[in-house]
């Protein structure tokens, strides 16, 4: 066997008292797609940051093509042949695409041809990053990384923010890289992707390498068991829940229109129901959630909460009526420098009447939320130090601590490990069982039958398909989402 392309030995890294990596061994051979797996907080992103020169390890060795390397800055990793697409976009928001490329001294044409291959050929390079949707940024990040023609491509949860059609482009590129005899280190929480794409998988748990397996042989269970250790979860089938047609309608919309993005949406959501929304990227689902959560007012039509119209000037009005939002982007929802507790308690104080003094049962409420979501509070003093999955739990936990009637979740499991995902499914069902309503948009279509009772497919700002979630196959949903079947 020749030298491995990348080999790390006993890499460790701590942040103060939080140990992010204890001892990571990873070997990536040339010409393979290698999955890096682990629950939230296992240390995947930390390893990626070390491999791309963003942070320095406390100890351990890294060698590329058999030669030991130290990378103190991102450009040094690039020089060593390692290019990374980080978990968070690494494009400068106030510059244009062209300027971002100039900044990194990357040839525009190379990026352009990459983008064309991904179906983004018409992208205006004078557009400001700030104005571009997240998926475009992910692909742009990818195209930029490819322009370096790296030996090893590191992809940290790139597919988490991508709708399935665009994820396909990424898979194509991974294949291409493999065929070229180069390698890809691929981080994802979607095990299906691992099973179908990856040749090898290294699994981290609590900052330690616990296994290296060949996914095609081990199967899903073979991945999950080492990943989760003792708590290895059952992969249950969809549970069908029965929603009484007499249950009150908690949330409804009547012919909503907004800025050409939402073009006449009407639906009803009953107490106890979990309603899924499926859509490709950019079909108006984000605007719909803005309207429902009181962040924006519709041009036409109404949002109806418990039978009376919601005329919200700000999210406060919706929250007061019991309609609360878990946004897609955690960065929007968290107070990064404050503690978990404060993050959870914030909505308790959105009313002026409660400004003087603290709510008596603040502690009980927040503790309950922490327990119920089993939030890992090792780094509780500042939420920014939590792993992505735990951050997401905090955002959901906030509403558990506060109370609500209708929960709007926009892609709540984005970037969440399989165990936590289960926890969130169970939690949402539990919440629904107590008579609340849940509206979920998810970019992962297989989630729909696992989580929802009913599903709406949105295309071009309109509902084009509706059905029971339990029988919703990915194929049916996908074709509806492409607008191929006009039915309502």
């Amino acid at each position, binding site marked *: 066997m020749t030298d491995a392309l990348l080999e790390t030995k006993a890499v460790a890294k*701590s*942040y*103060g008292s939080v140990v992010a990596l204890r001892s990571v061994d990873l070997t990536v051979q040339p010409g393979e797609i290698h999955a890096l797996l682990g629950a939230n907080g296992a240390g995947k992103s930390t390893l990626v*940051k070390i491999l791309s*020169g*963003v*942070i*320095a390890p*406390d100890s351990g060795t890294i060698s590329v093509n058999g030669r030991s390397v130290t990378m*103190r*800055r991102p450009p040094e990793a690039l020089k060593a042949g390692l290019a990374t697409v980080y978990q*968070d976009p690494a494009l400068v928001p106030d510059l244009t695409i062209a300027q971002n490329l100039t900044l990194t001294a990357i040839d525009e044409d190379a990026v352009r041809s990459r983008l064309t291959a991904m179906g983004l050929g018409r992208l205006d390079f004078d557009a400001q990053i700030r104005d571009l949707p997240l998926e475009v940024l992910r692909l742009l990040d990818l195209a930029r990384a490819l322009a370096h023609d790296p030996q090893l491509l590191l992809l940290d949860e790139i597919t988490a923010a991508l709708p399935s059609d665009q994820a396909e482009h990424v898979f194509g590129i991974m294949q291409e890289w493999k065929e070229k005899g180069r390698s890809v280190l691929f981080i994802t929480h979607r095990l299906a992707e691992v099973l179908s794409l990856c040749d090898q998988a290294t699994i981290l748990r609590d900052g330690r390498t616990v296994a290296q397996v060949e996914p095609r042989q081990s199967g899903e269970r073979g991945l999950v068991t080492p990943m989760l250790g003792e708590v290895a979860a059952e992969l249950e089938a969809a549970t069908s829940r029965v929603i009484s047609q007499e249950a009150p309608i908690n949330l409804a919309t009547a012919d909503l229109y907004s800025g050409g993005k939402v073009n006449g949406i009407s639906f009803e959501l009953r107490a106890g129901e979990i309603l899924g929304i499926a859509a490709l990227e950019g079909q108006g689902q984000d605007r719909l959630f803005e309207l429902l*959560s009181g*962040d924006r007012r519709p041009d036409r039509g109404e949002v109806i909460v418990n039978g009376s119209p919601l005329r919200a000037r*700000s*999210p*406060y009005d919706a*929250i*007061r009526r019991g309609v609360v*939002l878990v*946004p897609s982007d955690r960065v*929007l*929802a*968290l*107070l*990064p*420098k*404050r503690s978990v507790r*404060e993050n959870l*308690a*914030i*909505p*308790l*104080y*959105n*009313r*002026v009447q*409660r*400004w*003087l*003094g*603290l*709510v008596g049962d603040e502690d009980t409420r927040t503790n309950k939320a922490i327990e119920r979501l089993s939030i890992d509070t090792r780094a509780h003093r*500042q939420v*920014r130090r939590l792993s992505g999955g735990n951050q997401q739990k905090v955002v959901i936990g*906030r509403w558990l601590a506060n109370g609500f009637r209708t929960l709007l979740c926009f892609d709540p499991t984005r970037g969440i490990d399989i165990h936590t995902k289960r926890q969130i499914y169970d939690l949402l069902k539990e919440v629904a069982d107590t008579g609340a309503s849940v509206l979920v948009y998810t970019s992962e279509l297989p989630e729909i039958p696992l989580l929802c009772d009913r599903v709406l497919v949105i295309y071009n700002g309109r509902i084009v398909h509706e059905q029971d979630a339990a029988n919703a196959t990915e194929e049916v949903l996908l074709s509806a989402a492409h607008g191929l079947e006009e039915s309502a």
Partner: protein
Amino acid sequence: MTVADLPGVRRQAASMRLLADHPLWILGGVLVVLIAITGAIRPSYLSFSGLRNTVLLAAPLGIMAAAQTLLMLTGGIDLSVAMVATGAAYVAGNRSPSGALIAIASGLLVGLIAGATNGIGVGIFQVNPLIMTLAMAAILLGLFTSWAQTIFTGSTTVAPLIKTLGGGSFFGNRVPYNALIWVGVALVVMWLLKRTGLGRITYAIGDNPIAARLSGVRVWQVHLVLYTLAGLLAALAGILIAGRTGAVDLQLASTFLLPSVAAAVIGGTSIFGGVGSYSGTILGALILSVLNSMLTFLNVGQAIQQVVYGLIVLLLAWLYAKVTTER
């Protein structure tokens, strides 16, 4: 990822970590050292009256810095505090013939109006706080200069009660009255920040205004309340300064502006919001007060004073950052 993740960052020793958990100890230590140095320059400073002076001079600064702290925690700043203080003091001085209480109330009214206007500008019209308050200072200066010749003519000597509150002491002339007021303000501000919903929201807005909004906080309300409160605190500080100087003019508090920011910053409040405490600011104000005494006693020209002042502020901030920057 944050800057703290960047390379070149060393790990801290355990003792440093202990200090990092209690950054106020450092400030306390610095204060003691400065007092000792000042005492070495002028031994008689280490006496009841010397220390009383330090507190007496720090109190209005500390109150003004409370305004600054509240706003800095939201990511804002108030560059109009000095002019609001001056305006309030001017009105209080001018209304003194009608009695001290009316004078104080009229002075506070100035703070209320100016602060609320700042709050409306920042909260509702989204004007950058630095610019809003800078402009407010200019506007107030213009208004008061012309009012001084029209509606606020006459006496500018403050009422005896205000003099006593601002400059007097009790307990054998050892404890300044203004220190009592400062303690009161400090208790209220610390209670607000630590033990109330408003405090929680204040930190939240400074940390991430979008998250606060999505949690149902109406950010403009918080701005309105806090800027108004800051205006009131600045006005109170101004009235106390007037009491100490005995009379008012339109430049009364102008020298307090930069120190009010410096006190909060030295005390560990982040100019970007979301991090800080009033207890730090209190120590910051005391440190600056001792520093001023030290410079007075040094008997050197302004050139050296300015250099020394700048260097010490820089070194203090550096020391604080070094110990508290979490890695």
